């Protein structure tokens, strides 16, 4: 049922499973915290753990990742404490992770705007003869945006060592992919840019891993970008504020539920004799346990003042953003002299 598993070592297979379990635990905990009112609207990635874990694991740590809001937890697989992305959804600036330490760009909210950034990082590294690959995430909806076209075109043209990992989960909020584009296979869009487009099962962590590895190898060999279409299905809502029953058939959704990747990977690992059920259950339990009390850390995180935030906009803080001016009508130095 899952491809390529025979070529995976037990160690790597368990690493991928653990990464998926940690992502799942994060996602479930975040939804709970949202329901408890401890964080704000949260874009769940339930069902995308396989493609996300694979993408991080398939690349060495020096390679850059360019996430959207749907991949807010991939940075935790690079060592960032899970508290950080949770603070993001809390609306706390502590949610901005250290970009340079993890080589993960800040999440981009307008879809596709991150794709040109990845092209530039990859292209820039190529010009500087650094061995570096950049991977940018997107969804089926993002491939309708102009930045998708400009990024793919530019990347193909200059041979940027970049990977566009487009998870086609078949929905952009309420818009099905059939109303997003006339093309049936998103990967076919690659032909317009003279770059390879490949399709992979987004629920198959091993296939996703292989696909990203192959794309990265091509990029490192100077063969330029790859568009990967990871075909899946959005098993959850767009975000916690979304109500899918308004626009899609929940009966049909249930047909997709068996594809849920964490359970599916667990079954495959057991079937292949790479791990026992109990061992994998333990990994899942440990991942859940690790985050059990994180809500308290979110609550206890010290707030920052608007004055502190104002000092982060420019290198040298302009007059109007100075702590003593920020809340005032701009009645400045001359003010006291009047009368």
């Amino acid at each position, binding site marked *: 049922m899952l491809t390529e598993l025979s070529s995976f070592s037990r160690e790597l297979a368990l690493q991928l499973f653990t990464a998926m379990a940690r992502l799942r635990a994060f996602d479930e905990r975040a939804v709970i915290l949202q329901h408890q009112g401890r964080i704000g609207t949260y874009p769940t990635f339930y069902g995308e753990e396989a493609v996300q874990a694979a993408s991080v694991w398939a690349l060495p740590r020096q390679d850059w990742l360019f996430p959207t809001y749907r991949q807010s937890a991939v940075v935790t697989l690079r060592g960032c404490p899970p508290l950080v992305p949770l603070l993001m959804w809390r609306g706390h600036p502590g949610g*901005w992770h250290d970009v340079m330490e993890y080589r993960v760009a800040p999440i981009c909210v307008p879809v596709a705007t991150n794709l040109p950034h990845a*092209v530039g*990082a990859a292209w820039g590294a190529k010009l500087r003869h650094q061995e570096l690959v950049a991977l940018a995430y997107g969804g089926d909806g993002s491939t309708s945006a102009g930045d998708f076209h400009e990024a793919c075109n530019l990347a193909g043209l200059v041979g940027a060592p970049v990977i566009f990992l487009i998870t086609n989960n078949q929905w952009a909020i309420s818009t099905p992919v059939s109303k997003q584009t006339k093309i049936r296979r998103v990967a076919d869009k690659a032909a317009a840019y003279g770059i390879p487009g490949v399709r992979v099962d987004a629920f198959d962590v091993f296939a996703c891993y292989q696909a990203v590895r192959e794309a990265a190898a091509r990029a490192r060999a100077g063969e330029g970008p790859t568009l990967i279409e990871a075909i899946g299905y959005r098993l959850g809502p767009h975000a916690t504020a979304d109500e899918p029953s308004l626009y899609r058939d929940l009966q049909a959704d249930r047909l997709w539920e068996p594809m849920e990747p964490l359970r599916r990977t667990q079954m495959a690992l057991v079937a292949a004799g790479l791990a026992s059920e109990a061992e994998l259950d333990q990994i899942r339990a440990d991942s859940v346990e690790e985050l059990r009390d994180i809500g308290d850390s979110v609550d206890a995180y010290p707030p920052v003042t608007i004055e502190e935030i104002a000092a982060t906009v*420019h290198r040298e803080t302009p007059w109007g953003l100075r702590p003593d001016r920020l809340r005032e009508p701009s009645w400045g130095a001359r003010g006291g002299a009047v009368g």
Partner: protein
Amino acid sequence: MSATAELNMVEAITKGLGQLLEEDPDAILLGEDIGRNGGVFRATAGLQERFGEDRVVDTPLSEAGFVGAAIGMCLVGLHPVVEIQFDAFVYPAFEQLVSQAGRFRWRTRGAYGLPLVVRLPYGGGTRAPELHSDSPETLFSHMPGLRVVVPSDPLSAGELLLAATRCGDPVVFLEPKRMYRRGRQLLPAKFVPGDLDHAVVVRPGEDLTVIAYGAMVDVAEGAAERLQEEGVSTRVLDLRSIYPLDRESILAAAEETGRVLVVHEAARHCGVAAEVAALLQEEAADVLLAPTLRVTGMDMPFPLSQNEDDALPTVERVLAAAHTMLEY
């Protein structure tokens, strides 16, 4: 072009870019037709020949794509200077500049600013087709995280351009293209990076201040000359930085001359002049001898060339406003 020479503004920019590429191995130029062609205004003439195709890079016709790519280049240590071919062609890149570039330092809690400069030949007076004469400075000065810089002559173009490349924040660098070939200046062998924080009094005066920037400094000086003949001593303050504004120099002008008139070719509504006038109202109302008047472009698409002189501020329009203020 390295020795002392008399250059016009576009040649000064070429010289500044050449100096940047020489001094900073991480600097890279990106833009449409900037390589062999040297740019439609020849601002990059000869630079690809000198520095190679990897440092002076022709891009596809894709402003959002290459401005976005320049943001990514910053992350791997490059210092991109991007040329937008004409003012209004920046609009496709608006999202990358305001939703991405301007927010990057804030998104890294102050830790990391993008060393990105976007050069933008702007403004009217060149008899160009539609959407080749816009003045979009207000858009970028209203949106957070960007610096907006406008030189007015060859020397300031070279000095401010070099300062922009090392200021640590993304800069929208507006080049008044009408001044590109208007007049030469003796320039030093090497530019010293200029002062991005301060406006410059380009003409001293005591009765009235005309605040201007870009090509309008020339108009303001023309008006000051005529007012001098009438016995009116007029200060001309060249803003140079649109964001942030040099508040001190503006307030000093109010205090020392009592009358402040603002000139720009961008549309009036919510323009830079409105911000200056509000600043004066809030902080210098007690010293003003007359209300601040604005001589600006009009709240309409910049006219096609047959009517552009109607929309552009002229010496006569500045004089009329100055007389109103002096007689107030």
